[in-house]
Structure formats: C-alpha cells, structure tokens
C-alpha cells in the first residue's frame, strides 16, 4: 500500500479543494463533480482527502462498514454478533473503473459459496465498499447510462437495493460521490449533473512557478514518502481539526430568513431549475460558515459557494455562450451590494 499524497501539499486547485472540504463537512451536499483535463490532480486530491479523514468506527467483521452507533439493523446481523466491540477503519476510497460491470458495482451472488456449499449468499460490490466513504468515478461522462442511473438512485437514497439472481437485499451505501470528466469528450446528461451538489472546473496550472513546484513536490514524495508526509503533518492536522470542528459546529449554524431570500433570488436570477439548487446553495453556505467557525450564514458565505453550487444547473441556451460562471458572478454582483 502506497502512502497517500498529503491533501495540503497539493499546489493550487483551491476551488476543488474547497469543494471537497465542504463535501466532507456536509455529506448531504450530494457529491462533487469535477470538470477538467487529465493530469490536473483530480484523483490525487480526492484520494488525499479520504486519506486525511480520521479513521471511522466500524462494526468488526461487517462487510458493509456499518457504524456501531447506527440504529438500523445491519443486514447480516454483524452488530448483534459483535456486541459492544468496535474497530477502527480507514475512510474508504473506492475508484470505480470506467468499465465496471453492474455485478461489480451492485454486488452479486457469491458464486464460490453457491457452488461449493450451495449457500445463497450476497457478495457485496463496490457500493458496499464505498459505504461511509468516497466513491470516485473518473470520466463519468463515458459511463454507461444504466450504471449512471443506478449510481444516482443509490447516491440519493443511501441504500442499495438488490433484486437479482434470486437475491433480495438492501444494504446501506452512503457515500460522497465524486465524479470527474472532460466535457470535450462527451457531455453528461443534465439529470445526472443536477444531482451532483457542487461542481468545479479544474484547469491545468499555467503558472510556471506552480508547475515547477508540483514537479518538485511529486519528486520529493516519490523519493521519501514518509519524510514528505511528515513535513506536512501540521497542516494536515489543521485541516483535519477544521473539518472535525466544522462538523460539530454545523448543526448550530443559523440561516436567517434574509439569506433564504437571497438564495431564492439568486437562483431565479440565473435561471437555475428546481429546488435542488437552492437547497444545495444554502447547505453549502452553512458548511462554509461552519468551516469559518461562524454561527450565522452571511451573504459572503453564499457568494463564496454560489458558483460551485449552481454552475451546473443553469438552463443551457444553445445560442448564448456566456459561461455559467460569468452569469452567476454577474447576478451576485447585482444582488449583494459590495
């Protein structure tokens, strides 16, 4: 097992890092979609965040990574069997390969058991493995439609329902969906896009100093992973503390009515369809406030997250090429007096 590249050692890409942090603080945001070219550090960042998060408590031996304090019964009765014992496990990071079959994603009949002992047993798939962690899908725009549908259903409901091969099973699958893709290679269906909470654009860094620094850091990490990770221990710990603090703080953050109004006005000004945009905007603003350790959501919190939360929800106009980002920034400037 290789060591993970430290999250705080990633040069630049601040929007992507911020979006991932918000998703870590508020899992209900519904995942992050990352648009961008290859070789911009997308998967490194997601992997790094999963590696950064503190180990979670799990029921020993549970194949679904259930939490000990969860009250819904685990389908295999691990919790009852384990009694009070708990175990610590790394927050899972599952990389869903482009060509994954439905069997591998959803899980399927455990053929080995079926053939050897005649026992009908469910072999959990990647969705079970990703429970309580991150599910990363590179080039999600190339994923087959039926898999995309399936992932969306699970991501929204937090439960994977399996009805196949004579099996009838439902198990928890709550994960933060992180998708990435290059819009030049194919568009993502709007229905799918809309279900992502946040979306960010990553560009390859153009600043030569940054590029050199990236090469240098990767090289140092190659040669001496342990030393490199140790160098960033303090900043990693700070980030970790900030996430933990923000998670604790989040329920206490107040959203005043005028902020709700601002969110609604902003959504209608830019033409973001549906309530989901508004909801995500406010949730993200709350997470942003919690990260900043503020008790109340202010207009600037909304402004800071507006582009990420709304960019991918604007109705597309074939004839208007004005970028979504520009439209949102314009609306923000009108609605929030400087």
């Amino acid at each position, binding site marked *: 097992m290789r060591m993970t590249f430290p999250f705080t050692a990633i040069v630049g890409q601040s929007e992507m890092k911020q979006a991932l942090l918000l998703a870590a603080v508020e899992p209900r945001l519904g995942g992050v979609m990352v648009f961008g070219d290859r070789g911009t550090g997308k998967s490194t960042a997601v992997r790094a965040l999963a590696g950064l998060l503190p180990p979670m408590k799990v029921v020993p031996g549970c194949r679904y990574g259930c939490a000990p304090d969860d009250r819904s019964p685990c389908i295999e009765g691990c919790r009852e069997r384990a009694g009070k014992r708990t175990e610590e496990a790394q927050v899972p990071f599952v990389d869903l390969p482009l060509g994954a079959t439905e069997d591998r994603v959803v899980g399927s009949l455990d*053929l080995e058991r079926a053939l050897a002992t005649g026992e009908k047993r469910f072999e959990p798939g990647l969705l079970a493995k990703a429970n309580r962690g991150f599910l990363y899908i590179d080039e999600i725009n190339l994923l087959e439609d*039926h898999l995309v549908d399936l992932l969306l259903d699970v991501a929204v409901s937090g439960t994977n329902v399996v009805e196949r091969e004579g099996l009838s099973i439902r198990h928890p699958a709550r994960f933060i969906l992180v998708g990435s893709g290059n819009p*030049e290679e194919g568009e993502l269906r709007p229905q799918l896009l809309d279900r992502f909470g946040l979306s960010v654009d990553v560009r390859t860094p153009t600043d030569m100093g940054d590029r050199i620094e*990236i090469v240098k850091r990767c090289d140092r990490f190659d040669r001496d992973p342990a030393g490199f990770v140790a160098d960033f221990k303090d900043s990693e710990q700070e980030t970790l503390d900030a996430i933990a603090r923000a998670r604790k703080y989040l329920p206490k953050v107040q959203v005043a009515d005028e902020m709700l109004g601002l969110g609604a006005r902003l959504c209608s000004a830019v033409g973001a369809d549906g309530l989901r945009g508004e909801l995500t905007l406010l949730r993200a603003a709350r997470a942003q406030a919690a990260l900043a350790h503020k008790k109340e959501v202010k207009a600037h919190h909304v402004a800071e997250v507006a582009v990420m939360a709304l960019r991918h929800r604007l109705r597309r106009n074939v004839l208007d090429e004005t970028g979504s980002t520009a439209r949102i920034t314009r609306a923000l400037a009108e609605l929030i007096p400087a």
Partner: protein
Amino acid sequence: MTPDLPSRAREGPGVGLPPVPPDENSEDRWALALSAIDIIAAAGNRVGGILLRARPGPVRDAWAAALALVLLSRRLPGSADADALDGGLDLTATLASGTPVHRIGLLREARGASLLVPMAERLNPALAARLATAMDEDAPPLILFDEGDPDDPERERILPSLAERLAIHIDLNAVRLPMAALLAGEAPPPLAMLDEPGAVAKDPETALSVAAAALGIASIRAPILALRVARAHARANGRSDAIDQLREADMAAAAALVLGPRATRMPPPPPEEEQPPPPQEPPPEEPPPDQEPPEPPPPSDDTPGDDQEQPEPPPIDPTDMVLDAAQTTLPPGLLDALAAGTISKAPKSSGASGAKQKSITSGRPAGVRPGMPGRGARLALIETIKSAAPWQKVRPARADGRLAIRTDDLRIRRYIAQTQSTTIFAVDASGSAAFARLAEAKGAIELLLAEAYVKRAEVALVAFRGSEASLALPPTRSLPRARKELAGLAGGGGTPIAAGLDLARKVAEAERGRGRSALVVVLTDGRANVGGDGQTSPQEAALASARAYRVAGIAAVFIDCAPRPRPQGAELAAAMGARLVTLPRVDAKSVVAAVKAATTGV
C-alpha cells in the same frame, strides 16, 4: 512474436509493404527504444510503462526480444475479461471439479515482470480503464503495443487516460534496421546523445517543467513522469539518481522518451507567452515523420531558477538541451499538421461509450441463453441448475452426491444496451451556395446536439468540396467540441459528390462497427462535377457511390437543396435507397425535422 489474434479485418496499406519511408535517424530512434528497456527495468511501475507504436514486423520483434532479455513479461490475451486481470473464480474448472478453483489475476501474476498487451488499440475500454486505475496502484509495468496503422485516421486508439499514465512513448513505425547485422547478433551502435553522461544538469525539475510547457504539453503528469524517467536512466547507468546528480544524458533520455512524443506544438520563440493548449494526443496524419527541427530551439533564459546560485563549476542550464532532445521524437506529422492548421483535432477516445445492441456484458438484463461463461459473459446460475435438474436421474450419479452439470447445461446472461445513434452529415461545401448551406448544417448539428443528451446521439460532419472530402467533425456528442471544430470550415470549389458519399459511408460503417446505428444525411444540389475517371463522368461516379449505400444497408436522408430541383438529386436518392427531401431554402430547423422523421419513421 506475432500477436495471437487474427490481424484486423480492415485492409490498410500496411499489410505487407510498409509505405512509411525509412527515417533518417532510424538508428537513434532504435537506440533510444532500447534504452527505454533499461529504464523500465530500473524504474518499474513508477513510470507506468511503455507505449510502443509499431506495426507487427521484424523491428518490433527485435525490440520485444531485447525486452525479454531484461524483463520477463506476461501477455494479456486479447480475449481477456476483467477476471483475467484481477483473478476470480474459474467457473469452468470449478464446475468440472466441484470445488472452487481460483485463478490468479494477471496483475498479481505479473509482479516482478511486466505485462505486455499486444494490439492495445483494440483493448476493450473496460480493461483499458482497469489498467489505467492499476497504474496508480502497485501494478507491474505495462508494455502496450499499438499496432494501429499510423496513416489511417480512422484507426482505433488507446484509451487516453491509460496512454497518459505510461511515461515512455516510442514510435518504431519509421525505424528500419539492418536486418542482416541484427540477425548476426551485432549490437546496434549506442546512441551518441545518451552515450556520455555529460555535465551535471542544474535544476532538473525546472528544466523539465519549462520544456513541457514550451512543447504545449498541458498535463502536469508529463514532467513528473519525465523526472522519474531521468532518475531511472541514471540508475540504469550505474550513477546516482540524486536530484543534484542528474546528468545531461538523463535529461535527454527523459525529454526524448517522455516529452517529445507528447508535444502538441513546436516551442514558441518568445518563451511563456501563451497558455498551453488543452492536452491532445498527437494527430497521426502524414506518414513522414519530420525529424529535423526547422528552427533552433529558442533560448529560454528567463526561466525561473536560473538565478539560484550554484557554486559547482560544471552545472549547466539544461532547458535548451532538453528541448533539443525532445525534438528528436516529436510525433510524426506534428509539423505538417501545424503547417496545415489542423492540430486542434483531438482524436476520439476509442469508442468507450459505444454499446452493442445485444450485449452479453452490460445493459439491462434480457434473459439468458445457452453458452459458455467467460469473455465477459456471466453465468446464470439458477437457469443453469434448472436446465441440469431434469437430467439428474439419467446421468450417472456423482460420487460426492453433487449435481451433475455438463457444458451444455450452462446458461449465460444476456443484456440489452440502449441503441445509440450517430447522425453523419455529408455536406456539399462547394460553389456559391456553400456558405449558407454549411451555416445551416452547423445550425442543425448544434440543435441536434443540444437535444442529444436525452438520446445520447452523436453527430459527425463530412464536408466535400474542391477535389476531395474531409471529416470535418469526427463523431461526437460534445457541443463545445462541435462548435470549436466547425468554426473554421471553409466553402467553395468543385462538387466531388462521389468522394463525399464514400467518406460518409466509411464513417457510417465504422460507427456500426462500434455498435451504434448510423444515419447519413446528405445535403447537396445533386450535381457532381468532380470525380470519376476517363470512362465515367462525375455524375456516374456519384451514382456508383450512392448504390454502395443500398448494398451496405445504410440508412440515409437525401436533402436536395437545389433552388430548382432537377432529376439528378432524385436519381441519387433512389440509388442510395434514401428518403428524398427537397428543401430549396435550407434551414437548420427543417433539416432537423427531416432527420427526426427518418429516425422515428424507420
């Protein structure tokens, strides 16, 4: 070492006699390719592996033999399924023996060796994607053989995310070796460039980063991999790979193996002026690989890091040298493409999203059928047992009392994937009306693409004018890409209908090969004046090309946009078996309506 699969069915020019003229620095290229083997042996998976573009032949075999001397390799058979990489239950053996039989995946089995993939361009996208993920983990180094014909613009390509993760790209297509000497066991001459270690290179990270940017390589992965290659080269030559000990030769090897082949442009004379363009695979269009750099590389002496004080006497700023070295391996055709202004055409990824209508691997479940599991087909266990059950009394009972299952009881699952369609516009860009016609065709494409998410339809455009037809927009469902590529489409000149129809048909056939349904929409006034030869008139040639549609069974719509329709249009449409629509005044909306009528009506 020829591939164990039949060679590709499409006949290309490169079956027996390679049309590529021998390369002038053939020997250097060959020596470089050999040095890559040592680098892989020294670096292993840290540099991903090697992408070797070469058609099957003695040169590639000689290289593979040289590889075999240094590094064992396991082959990934073309018929491999996902289990072949990761291991899993060997169903057939399990059923035969009654106890679970596992097989180890090739990824584990090849530890300590390398994994060799012949015909990598035809690798199924699922496997390619799995390999790409494996590159980020502890996978064995990969050696991909890309056997695609470099002259064929329609050839399949390796999944970009996989190619990107392999540090070393080598093109042996233009390399000719003195075979007799090789057979006699004579070693090729060492590469002068890499022969002497040279001076210590100052600040290698900066040099590689700056050179990558100057060559228009956007991905940050390239300089990172280049640095790893430089270090591995130092180790392979028995020198220290400490960052302040890398020599010129290490940097040159890294530049020539990693940066050069990824270049998308020549280094610009004023350094760091514009942003690098988005990453693009080199467009392999023209055969002769131009080796000689047309201009000396620009001095990039204002690079950061230059002013750091370095007390050692010998260290040199290697940026220029790195650029020089990279220019020995620029992708073939880059210069021509730059001259022709066609560099922006990013090749399509290898049809990753195409799905077969009836598939055994993916889609919605659609019952079962008898067949062998494996090759992606999954066993339908219950059905298999059901079909074996009635025979149990008849068959000799097994000693262990288990079900007696025979091969012909085996059932596999079937799936139906949604049919996806590609609409190919063949647009007459000739004559005075060209401009308006093209504009409306572009409009129609954008309208179709705007709706395309729903149906996941793709659109392509073939434009014909002057004396030939060209694929102005390869099949895509990306609106931004269509906009970008159609922006600079020109019009005017003669009307080579035959050429246009032929090219559109080829595209349609290729799309059908990807499991998509294809519809060709022809926009022309139907009067050909270019094409044919001494015996046949342009119009007759066009009719012949049109008949090929009927033979191939390709659905088509013929939009006759002559101001006053004449019989030629109708004749062509009839020959094609196409639906005829007359639109004296073409506009985007009615074109879209005609396309829709054709797709829903059939």
